[in-house]
């Protein structure tokens, strides 16, 4: 595997600095502790998300493609994408431009610039894998004490890569190992790849309640103490929705790792959760003291 060095450029997406601050902040911490130099793609813009591809295919391609052009102009070789949905949109636009002459010409007509296809889009888990377990292990100064976690991949991460451009399947063992070196224990459960309702949580909350209840029910049944997620919309839905099941803290994978690395700034982002994870974390700390 090639060595990862120098600065890493990333595409944050619209929620990372806002409703997904927990992920944004913990990711910054993790990168700092790993000694990585990270900076966002300059002047990035929204990928268009579901509203664009649901209603207007041209908007979907052009909005996502603007970012590919920016990355090309800024000499970015690997663009790390933080959000599974943004990732799929950027990947889709890339595929369209590179495989359809018509789309490529349309892009050139609109922006008067050509996309040559030299930017590698990479989901942030790919970069983590490249950094490697050994390196991550070195910074785990404050590991958990057998915290039982239900890894929730959600939909877009876990579909075949011929559809979305990224399939979590080959990374699952790595992610489980990652969680283990953080001192947590991934439980086996059947609902790690089922949809949370995505934007239906806003437009048809009852539907999302039903889906989240089912997910949470099975996580609780597997004796998980929290759910670990990779996507900001999953995170929000799993905290906000679901009526029939008891609440369960929902942490981002980056939070889990940054906490296990003993990040001194964790309180800043932990306070933003709608389901307070602090009682659970205190319980883990007292285990640490008694152990």
């Amino acid at each position: 595997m090639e060595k990862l060095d120098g600065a890493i450029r990333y595409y944050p997406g619209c929620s990372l600095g806002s409703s997904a601050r927990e992920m944004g902040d913990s990711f910054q911490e993790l990168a700092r502790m790993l000694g990585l130099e990270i900076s966002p793609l300059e002047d990035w813009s929204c990928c268009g998300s579901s509203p664009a591809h649901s209603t207007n295919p041209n908007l979907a391609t052009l909005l996502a493609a603007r970012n590919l052009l920016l990355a090309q102009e800024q000499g970015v070789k690997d663009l790390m994408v933080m959000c599974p949905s943004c990732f799929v949109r950027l990947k889709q636009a890339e595929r369209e431009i590179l495989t359809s002459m018509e789309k490529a010409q349309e892009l050139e007509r609109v922006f008067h610039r050509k996309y040559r296809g030299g930017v590698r889009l990479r989901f942030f888990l790919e970069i983590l894998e490249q950094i490697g377990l050994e390196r991550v292990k070195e910074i785990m100064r404050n590991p958990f004490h057998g915290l039982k976690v239900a890894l929730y991949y959600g939909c877009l991460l876990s579909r075949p890569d011929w559809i979305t451009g990224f399939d979590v399947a080959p990374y699952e063992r790595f992610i489980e190992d990652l969680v283990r070196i953080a001192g947590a224990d991934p439980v086996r459960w059947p609902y790690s790849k089922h949809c949370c309702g995505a934007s239906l949580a806003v437009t048809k909350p009852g539907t999302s309640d039903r889906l989240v209840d089912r997910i949470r029910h099975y996580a609780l049944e597997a004796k998980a103490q929290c759910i670990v997620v990779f996507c900001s919309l999953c995170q929000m839905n799993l905290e906000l929705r679901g009526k029939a099941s008891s609440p369960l803290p929902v942490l981002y994978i980056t939070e889990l790792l940054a906490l296990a690395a003993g990040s001194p700034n964790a309180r800043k982002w932990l306070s933003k959760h709608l389901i307070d994870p602090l009682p659970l974390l205190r319980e883990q700390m007292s285990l640490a003291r008694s152990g």
Partner: protein
Amino acid sequence: MRVDSSFKEEVRKRSGQRFDACFQCLSCAGGCPVVEDMDYNPTQIVRLVEFGQRERVLASKAIWVCVGCHACVSQCPNRVNVPLLMDTLRQMALEQGVEVPEKRIVLFHRTFLDQVRRRGRIYELGLAARYKLASWTLFQDLIAGLKFLWKRKFKFLPEAVKGLSDIRTIWREGDGKA
């Protein structure tokens, strides 16, 4: 029941996909997480397209309820790309001025894209406020909304991209029908 034979061709052409590979095994319908909220399940939508049922398909709830989780196409033995079909059908429903039964979903998409059009990025607080006002759902999730504000979970001030001229060009050239 009117059969509109041009419908199937139009859908095929626009989506770049053939849907006659479907042999109605119902895997898509069985795996769909939101099928309970649909008037026709995904298999039925594929069949109705094949049977040229333009009005029934374009006025259906199903095409809007689909969130594109891709469970269906992942399980399809013939790789019929249902989410792509749903995208195409939604776009056609809007273009053809069909009365959409899931008004809030369309409103959400429009409000979202309006944010992108103005700033090039989503300003979540503005998106939530505008959607809630326009959909008359101000009191739904009021407590959660207040918690969001209290915890400063939303970024308070909107930010815009520098290259707004790019965004304007995208809307002008991308035919802005959304």
